[in-house]
């Protein structure tokens, strides 16, 4: 196993980082928080599209850059570092993988074309309030009719759901034959942006009321086992990307906390010289290295299509959750009153890290997955 980046990967990461430092400084995130983003939102996304990042893991034959999930994951980590208020996670880490994993070549051409050529925003709607991301318990229903499939239900926590052009909806067949995936144009649904603790990463409720999906927009027919596996594989990619982005965010909190512990003096010396602080900073570092190593491992199992990918993704997301719990808590605690202030930028990262744990399955949910995979739970 080799976790070191290749020269190309290092260049990619460095260039993504420097672009985001330039284009998305904390002032831009603050504007998102304070509702002053205006055209910035679109501008950031245009920059991302011009640099072809949405095409990163799309095969060259489909007009993409032909790199793999490892590279996508590296960008996701940088997105987390910069807490970017742009629809990268939805479009690039959710929509594009779902299209590639589930749809036919002619569908791919159309769906990817809108993103790669026109800079459209796409997203995936899986979660529901009653079942989270556990697809075995979802209640949104797909019913077969003569004209196609009809969808009914309400999806929640849909990334950029109010801004997307196309929403890929995962629903369960009414005859319980299994799950399917359906490409739905945004004007066929009611998307409502939700007021959020972290407004830099917009989420929406998506209501589907008798939405008719013609056959050519069905990506996976319920009952198609291979297609269902594709949906799960796409969900794994989205989940791993969130884990990667969380470690990026946590790294920023950690670096800031470490610097503060060196700079802030009390009792005549830096607070970082006290063992009570020192050892807890080391515990934060260990949690971060644990999460980051497992996130890279998960990304590699996806990139190389290793049979361990499913459990690796759950381990990565669980470890990212454990990591944020410690880093958010001690990060804020060690910054003292300063960290408690709206005017400081720290809370952007604290909130993004916290919300990361709760989206795409919490640490507890993914530990339950691990336990299930080990045969320890039903």
């Amino acid at each position: 196993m080799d976790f070191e980046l290749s020269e190309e990967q290092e260049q990619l990461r460095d260039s993504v980082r420097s672009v985001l430092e330039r284009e998305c400084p904390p002032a831009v995130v603050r504007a998102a928080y304070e509702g002053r983003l205006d055209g910035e939102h679109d501008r950031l996304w245009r920059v991302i599209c011009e640099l072809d990042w949405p095409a990163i893991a799309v095969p060259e034959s489909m007009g993409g850059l032909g790199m793999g999930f490892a590279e996508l994951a590296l960008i996701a980590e940088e997105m987390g570092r910069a807490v970017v208020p742009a629809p990268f996670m939805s479009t690039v880490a959710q929509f594009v993988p779902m299209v590639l994993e589930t749809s036919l070549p002619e569908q791919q051409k159309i769906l990817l074309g809108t993103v790669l050529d026109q800079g459209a925003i796409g997203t995936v709607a899986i979660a529901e309030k009653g079942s989270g991301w556990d697809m075995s318990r979802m209640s949104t229903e797909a019913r077969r009719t003569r004209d196609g499939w009809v969808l009914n239900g309400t999806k929640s926590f849909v990334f950029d759901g109010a801004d997307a052009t196309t929403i890929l909806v995962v629903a369960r067949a009414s005859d319980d034959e299994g799950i399917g995936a359906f490409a739905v144009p945004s004007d066929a649904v009611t998307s409502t942006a939700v007021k959020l603790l972290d407004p830099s990463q917009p989420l929406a409720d998506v209501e589907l009321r008798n939405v008719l999906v013609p056959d050519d927009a069905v990506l996976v027919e319920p009952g198609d086992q291979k297609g269902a596996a594709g949906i799960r594989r796409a969900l794994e990619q989205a989940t791993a990307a969130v884990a990667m982005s969380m470690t990026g965010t946590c790294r920023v909190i950690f670096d800031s906390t470490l610097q503060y512990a060196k700079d802030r003096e009390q009792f005549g010396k830096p607070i970082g010289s006290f063992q009570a602080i020192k050892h807890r900073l080391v515990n934060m570092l260990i949690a971060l290295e644990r999460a980051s190593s497992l996130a890279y491992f998960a990304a590699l199992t996806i990139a190389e299509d290793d049979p361990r990918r499913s459990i690796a993704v759950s381990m990565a997301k669980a470890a990212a959750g454990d990591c944020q719990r410690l880093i958010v808590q001690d990060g804020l605690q060690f910054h003292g009153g300063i960290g408690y202030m709206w005017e400081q930028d720290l809370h952007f990262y604290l909130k993004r890290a916290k919300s990361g744990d709760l989206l795409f399955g919490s640490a507890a949910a993914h530990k339950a997955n691990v336990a299930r995979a080990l045969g320890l739970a039903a």
Partner: protein
Amino acid sequence: MRLTFDDSVERFRAEFVAWLADNRPSEEEIRADPALSSGHLPVWAKRWTRRMFDDGWLVPGWPPERGGRNASPTEQLVYLEEMERARVPRTTNPQGLGIVAPSLLDYGSQEQIENYALPILRGEKSACLGMSEPGAGSDLASLSTRAVLDGDRFVINGQKVWTSGARHSDFCFLFCRTDPEAPKHKGISVILVDMETPGMTVRPLPEIVAPEYPDLNEVFLTDVVVPKQNLVGTLNDGWAMANGSLAHERGMVWVSSSIVLDDDISRLVRDAPSWLGRVSEAERHALAERIADAYIDTAAARCMGYRGFGKLLRGGSAPEQALMKAFASEARRNLAMVAAEVQGPEVLEASPPAVHATTLVPDENTSWIEQYFRTFALTISAGASEIQRNIIAERVLGLPRS
């Protein structure tokens, strides 16, 4: 980034696995003549070490005349993985092979290499490491065993403690104070002392479990006289060696920790379903999550190890090894604790006597609770977890000293 090694590394692995199959001592042989401590060389161990030395499999990274084959760092890593997987002790004298011999090769005179280092590598002699004292544990530099240079000889007086394998060792790699006036880090030297020298008294210290196999000892030195040429390296420059010695020990220790963790977690995951079948559903969920945590720690230890190793290969910083030492040893302790709690009260039944922990062929019969107590040896020795945290805080994170 990738999950696999180059073909050439895999060929190296296959060659070693085949050699192991043909040459390793059998488990029966090892059990019939158990190592009594980490200084004891049973007949099979002497033969085994010699065979590895002759065939270049003892320390593959070294040149053939020192028992190696100039293997690359990645090949050394693969070697350690397979050695641990084969469940054969690489040596029954880990501190000799892992610390004393390499330190002598780095700092010793030609004569010391001939008379002390090479005999360790050929399985002829064993060594113990005289570091800790009653008043100098984590604060090793405050050690007070005193060596006075008197013409062409040293006269040594003092006491060592927690000296692994001392009662069976042939000689001691002894840290002593040679300049009491200098600042504490600057007055320490290393001297080789044959354990048979008059004035050396060893008293074994039975341990928290398996007291019939004491590995730790007190070593008392009363007017012990050794020739001046037994000084290793430069007078009063021993502290550099203390750091160097432990660096040898920490270098790739994570590999064996990681494989042992793999072994332990497989055993736990194998046995847990039947134990969990006896408890309520709520309890089962609570315990299953803790096993999942231990499983995640095991995977993380492996990934963190490889990641640190990758950095090391590309010339990155070594202090990150301290992080692995702390994490992996605590993960092992935690895993044993979880396993003991999952097993329930039956875990309290005592295990049949086993050979000593340091040379243990992993024994299915060792109870998890005994294993749990034994793992404290990992979090206390060779720099307690708290010392590792200080090292990481100061050398990796750049925090000021307290």
